[in-house]
């Protein structure tokens, strides 16, 4: 820890950009500005170009596809000739009626709460970059890390539908088919993941430093 402490004194809050250096986000190599990283060959940028715009574009795409994902049926079941359609929320309610409360909770949180929370967090982070929203940077980082970690789990309901459709094909009395919502939900999750990955987190800290200096 000695070295770490001394580095804080020598380069008191100096970032790589302020020192005229560029850090590779892929492999971590620190270097003088150049086109590509000497070590891993990735394109080298002090801040990812168009990070804000790309994050916003993917976020909007993710939110747009989340709407049909909730309005259209996720699962279309045929039992003895009668057709039954269920949406995401309908599926959760069905699980509650079966008495599978825990599974209902898992699916409900993963398919409704997590996507909504992820939209909100990415939106807040984008707002904080433009300094329209003031938030403790540590809270922001934790929010980002948590949503990044659990965001992938939203995919669970898509897997459930695919497994059910595959399984029931083996059966004779019933047939299960995925509805339009399954595809739009999968796309919504993929777009939101791409949105989070497009966000260059260094921009968040840049905006915070500038705010500090102005105040």
């Amino acid at each position, binding site marked *: 820890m000695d070295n*770490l402490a*001394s*580095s804080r004194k020598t*380069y008191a*809050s*100096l*970032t*790589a950009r302020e*020192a*005229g*250096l560029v*850090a590779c*986000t*892929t*492999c*971590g*190599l*620190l270097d003088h500005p150049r086109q590509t990283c*000497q*070590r*891993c*060959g*990735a394109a080298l940028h002090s801040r990812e170009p168009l990070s804000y715009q790309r994050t916003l574009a993917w976020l909007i795409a993710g939110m747009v596809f989340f709407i049909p994902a909730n309005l259209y049926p996720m699962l279309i079941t045929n*039992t003895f000739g009668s057709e039954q359609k269920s949406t995401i929320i309908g599926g959760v309610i*069905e699980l509650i009626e*079966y008495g*599978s409360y825990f*599974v209902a909770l*898992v699916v409900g949180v993963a398919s409704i709460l997590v996507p909504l929370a992820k939209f909100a967090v990415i939106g807040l982070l984008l707002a904080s970059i433009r300094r329209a929203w003031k938030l403790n940077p*540590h809270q922001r*980082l934790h929010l980002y890390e948590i949503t990044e970690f659990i965001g*992938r789990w939203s*995919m*669970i309901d*898509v*897997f*459930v539908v*695919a*497994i*059910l*459709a*595959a*399984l*029931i*094909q*083996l*059966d*004779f*009395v*019933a047939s299960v*088919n*995925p*509805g*339009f919502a*399954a*595809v739009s939900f*999968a796309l919504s999750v993929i777009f939101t*993941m791409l949105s989070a*990955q497009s966000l260059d987190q260094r921009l968040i*800290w840049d905006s915070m430093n500038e705010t500090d200096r102005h105040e």
Partner: protein
Amino acid sequence: MNTTSIDPSALIACPNCDLLHTARQVSEGERLRCARCGTKLASSRPNAIDRTLAAAVTNAILIVAALFFPFIQLDGGGTRQSATLIDAVSAFGTGLTAPLVLVVAAFIIVIPFMRASALVYTLWPLRFGRAPYKAAPQAFRLANTLKPWSMAEIFIIGVVVALVKIAGIAQVSLGPAFWMLTAVVLVLLLENHNFCRWTIWQVLGKHTQA
């Protein structure tokens, strides 16, 4: 401050917030964290390469094996049928099911297998103290890019949820392939614990820059 005098090789920058820190050797089991945001900058896990390589080899074998064993067995209407993952995937052809199943197959089989293979390709020569293969940086970059898109653990929980939903319609039992995928998930968890991509990049860098 005179910035031209700064030697980049003596410093590391935090990948999250860009703050500079003095680079130093990390002692075994220690983790170096960013002074501003707390992000892990470097960690020294003993035998990180050995363990990551072992996990990747195990996973590649398990994923291929899981394709050929029954994944799930269904008892209904007086007959028993079993399906491998390949059966399940190739049984589709109608409507929205086909693109959905392709996406699922990519997330649970193709991407985890590609990632495991890329890790084996990167780490195999390093394990035996030889120079890395020519495309090792590209392979290791691919492995890191694919990481969030490898969703075997989510699929396993999905299978359990599907079994709860189907319980009223038919009797379903799990085949060996299900347990192989579960093993893949456990190995991935272990691998995550030992994995430090900065360490591996440093080893790769010694060869490519020299």
